[in-house]
């Protein structure tokens, strides 16, 4: 019997909502870049609509007004200079949150087209692994991000 109880689904899929709420509470404006979503059986297609709303603006019309750059998924090498350009347009202080990456293990296939580690392209502040990230991991990641933001300012 595979039907998951509703509360479990909401917990699994509420991560985008959680980030939205957190960013609003922190009075942050965020610019979201959606890369290639990695392979996972629990795919956040329910959150696609929410991701689009994120993309259309969490108080931003462009990266110039954003404090936080949220990168979801993997980035291809061709897209890396675009992400760098977006990050360069963000005025200081700025932070980068990298979401939804699977932990790199030795058995995971390596691709010639994807950037292995986003931290070599833009300075990532917090990287949360797992897609969707578990509630606990998301909480710890956002807490760490808040700590880093307080340190910087």
């Amino acid at each position, binding site marked *: 019997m595979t039907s998951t109880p509703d509360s479990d689904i909401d917990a699994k899929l509420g991560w985008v909502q959680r980030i939205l709420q957190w960013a609003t509470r922190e009075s942050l404006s965020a610019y979201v870049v959606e890369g290639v979503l990695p392979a996972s059986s629990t795919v956040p297609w*329910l959150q696609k609509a929410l991701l689009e709303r994120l993309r*259309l603006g969490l108080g931003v019309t462009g990266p110039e007004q954003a404090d936080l750059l949220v990168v979801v998924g993997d980035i291809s090498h061709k897209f890396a200079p675009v992400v760098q350009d977006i990050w360069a347009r963000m005025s200081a202080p700025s932070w980068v949150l990298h979401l939804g990456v699977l932990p790199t293990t030795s058995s995971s*296939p390596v691709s010639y087209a*994807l950037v292995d580690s986003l931290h070599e392209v833009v300075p990532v502040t917090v990287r949360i692994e797992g897609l969707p990230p578990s509630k606990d991991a998301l909480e710890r990641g956002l807490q760490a991000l808040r700590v880093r933001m307080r340190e910087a300012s």
Partner: protein
Amino acid sequence: MKSVLDALPDVIMPDAVREADAASIPLVRPDDHDLVRPLAEEELPSATRRGSLMGADTAPLSRHLVWTFGPSHRALPFPLQLRVELSGERVLTVDPEIGWSHQGLERMLEFGTVDEGFGLLARLHPTTPLVPQLLWAHLWETILDVVDEVPARVCWLRVAGLELSRVVAHLDVLRALAEVYADRLAQQIFTDAHKACARALWTLQGEANFCAVGGMRDALDDSALTALEDELQAALVGVGQMHEQQLRNVAFVDGLGGRGVISIRNLLDHGVTGPALRASGVRDDVRRRHPIFAYDALEPALVTQQDSDALSRATQRLQELSDASRMVLQACHEARRADPSLGTLLDVDDKPLPPGRCAVSLEAPNGEMAFFVDVDANGKLRRTRLRTPSFALAQCLPHFLADAHLDDVVPILLGLGMVGTAIDC
């Protein structure tokens, strides 16, 4: 002779048969300069050319504004670069550039096993992973010649999953269109229906129910299937009412009617299939051509439209959506009646694969998706090729967007329903 070509007026078709018999075309090798910079850039004003202005030849400046739209833009659903040549507010030409979401999936599939392939194919269509995963399972079942041994219940549930994915995909496109035209009622209805149907699909597909060759991992029992049917029916009540209202919605009809008109010749030339082709009147459906799973028992209705503009494509998706939901309900009903056997799951990676090649296709929400696999004599997977319908749609973009108004570029693009990761695969 009746053929689609006869229907098109004023089309001068070259007699390729006669011309091919003539002396062959002289072989011209492209030079390095052509390979580095695309042709469109040579017509850009020299100020925007990359590099310095020193030594730039005094080529005539382009009379029209060339505007680069993308690759990362708030209005675009995925990274895509469009170099749009404008005359005032009218689009003259569009030069799309893709590759920003290229992941090298085909190479990754070569190095992985068949089971890892299921996980990798979820990257192809993150919103509807079931479509490529089912085709992958069908591909290996065809290679191993066990297609007839897949039990009926599994076939019916696969059809249910595929059609439910189609419902979800069409609802996504219609929701995006309603959002563009600020139709709050339609947007609300489509968003709620999309969420509910996606939730139902989640219940059906579970963690990795369909990611198996020869059967399913864990099928729902009858009560869960009944609950799924009820959920689906409740979700689509509003959409049924929407179906009638949509055509009377002035904003929608004025906004999409007559925009993005394309000829059948252009669609066929670029290999476009699916709702975009059927909206132009061509009766072509892979589900009827090559019925796999349980499609031969379940006749999909062949719906077509008359015009081939963006409004007819949206109407086509709406009608296909209601037909697909009808098929999901029927498939669940048949699955409950069928023998509750889940089939024997085959571990394809256990032994060397049988050498040979295989190509299968199915009707994805956007058109025909085809997988091609070549296994060499040693039993090693040599080549996997994924042909997605979004690639053909992206290649045909200049024809969809030719002579369009600038405000219509995004709605036409959204109405095509392309998946970014599938274009660049």
